[in-house]
């Protein structure tokens, strides 16, 4: 928002903004905020929204082949939730003055980013279990602290999202538990899925702290509350305990609890692969974008028809009122 006379209004606004942060209170849409804060939020929230929307695809891939009607219903409900999460987040981003169409266009044109995890293929049914348990699990670790993000609409969207996520994780865990207690083939399938999703899910927290340039500023603005590595370590600690219940193993011999730092540690991750996937060169990037683009284009006639109908109704109503 352009201020005609930047000096006085901005100075007062900036002072108020700093006061809000110092009190750990919330910034609301109509408040003055630094341009960089606004831009950074738009980037983060829209990327988050895109991730929810693209994230529907790897799981939607298995809806028609779910092993039972119960599992099919559960999977559909989960994928529908993810669509809802995307919409909550787009709404939150819009309060910052960026239109929905702008964000949609950026996504289908391939200029927007989304979480690298959704560019990996889902090759077996067990992947539905591993995704729910580890991918949604990592998302929860990330999102719970975001409920306290300094930007009000973002925090409120995250509260809504977090309430729904716990079912996602549990249903995934249950899928793995059932497979792990099934036939040797099913058990092998579960272990294979865990092996493939482990490293990508750890990378969901973003690059290591010493290679994460935006983190510091984001923490100073009370958007981010914990560093990438802190969250990742915490997550590994949870997996270690949970994988025992499954009777499976994590594909990482270097996982250990460091008695000195009181933190969980894990083996090295392939950050080159992470960068490649993020840059659009992962196994499914092209396919995911193409699917989103064609869904958007194929749905155009529905949006146009709904608009035409609304206009017609409004015109008829106006005529009746005039008569």
């Amino acid at each position, binding site marked *: *928002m352009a201020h005609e006379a930047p000096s006085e*209004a901005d100075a*007062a*606004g900036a002072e108020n903004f700093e006061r809000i942060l110092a009190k750990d209170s919330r910034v*609301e*849409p*109509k*408040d*003055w905020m630094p341009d960089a804060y606004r831009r950074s939020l738009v980037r983060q929230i829209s990327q988050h929204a895109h991730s929810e929307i693209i994230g529907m695809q790897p799981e939607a891939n298995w809806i028609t082949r779910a092993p039972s009607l119960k599992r099919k219903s559960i999977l559909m*409900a989960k994928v*529908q*939730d993810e669509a*809802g999460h995307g*919409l*909550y987040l787009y*709404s939150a981003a*819009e*309060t910052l*003055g960026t*239109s*929905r*169409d702008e964000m949609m266009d950026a996504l289908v044109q391939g200029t927007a980013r989304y979480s690298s995890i959704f560019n990996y293929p889902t090759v077996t049914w067990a992947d539905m279990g591993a995704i729910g348990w580890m991918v949604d699990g990592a998302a929860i670790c990330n999102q719970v602290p975001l409920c306290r993000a300094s930007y*009000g*609409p973002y925090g*409120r*969207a995250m509260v*809504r999202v977090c309430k*729904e996520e716990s079912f996602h994780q549990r249903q995934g865990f249950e899928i793995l538990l059932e497979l792990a207690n099934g036939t040797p083939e099913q058990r092998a399938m579960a272990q294979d899925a865990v092996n493939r999703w482990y490293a990508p899910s750890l990378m969901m927290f973003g690059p290591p702290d010493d290679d994460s340039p935006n983190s510091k500023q984001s923490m100073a603005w009370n958007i981010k509350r914990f560093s990438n590595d802190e969250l990742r370590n915490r997550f590994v600690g949870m997996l270690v305990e949970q994988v025992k219940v499954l009777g499976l193993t994590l594909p990482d011999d270097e996982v250990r609890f460091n008695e000195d730092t009181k933190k969980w540690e894990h083996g090295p991750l392939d950050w080159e692969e992470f960068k490649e996937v993020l840059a659009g060169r992962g196994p499914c990037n092209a396919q995911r974008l193409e699917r989103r683009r064609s869904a958007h284009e194929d749905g155009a006639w529905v*949006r*146009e028809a*709904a*608009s035409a*109908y*609304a206009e017609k*109704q*409004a015109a008829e109503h106006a005529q009746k009122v005039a008569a």
Partner: protein
Amino acid sequence: MSPQESTESTTPAPGEGGHRWPLWEVFVRSSRGLSHVHAGSLHAPDAAMALRNARDLYTRRNEGVSIWVVPSDAIAASDPDAKGAFFESPQGKDYRHATYYTKSEGVKHL
């Protein structure tokens, strides 16, 4: 939660970008006897579609027994910058609260 959060500077310019749908604010009554509370916002071509979308988006788990949708444009919001002037100062107005009256302490049913 105030309804202003999704309204300002987001109203799409009509006609731009083909068929942009207007923004609606959604209010949900979670159960009988309670007020409608702002849940969020969404885009829809008209009120009927806004209601249906709101049902799908904000009440997938029995969160509501009634929904209101209001065009975001129709909401007038107070200006946060004018806070001091707009909202009356509570200073020196303790007598508006029951706790101000201490002499009756110990009197039953008062």
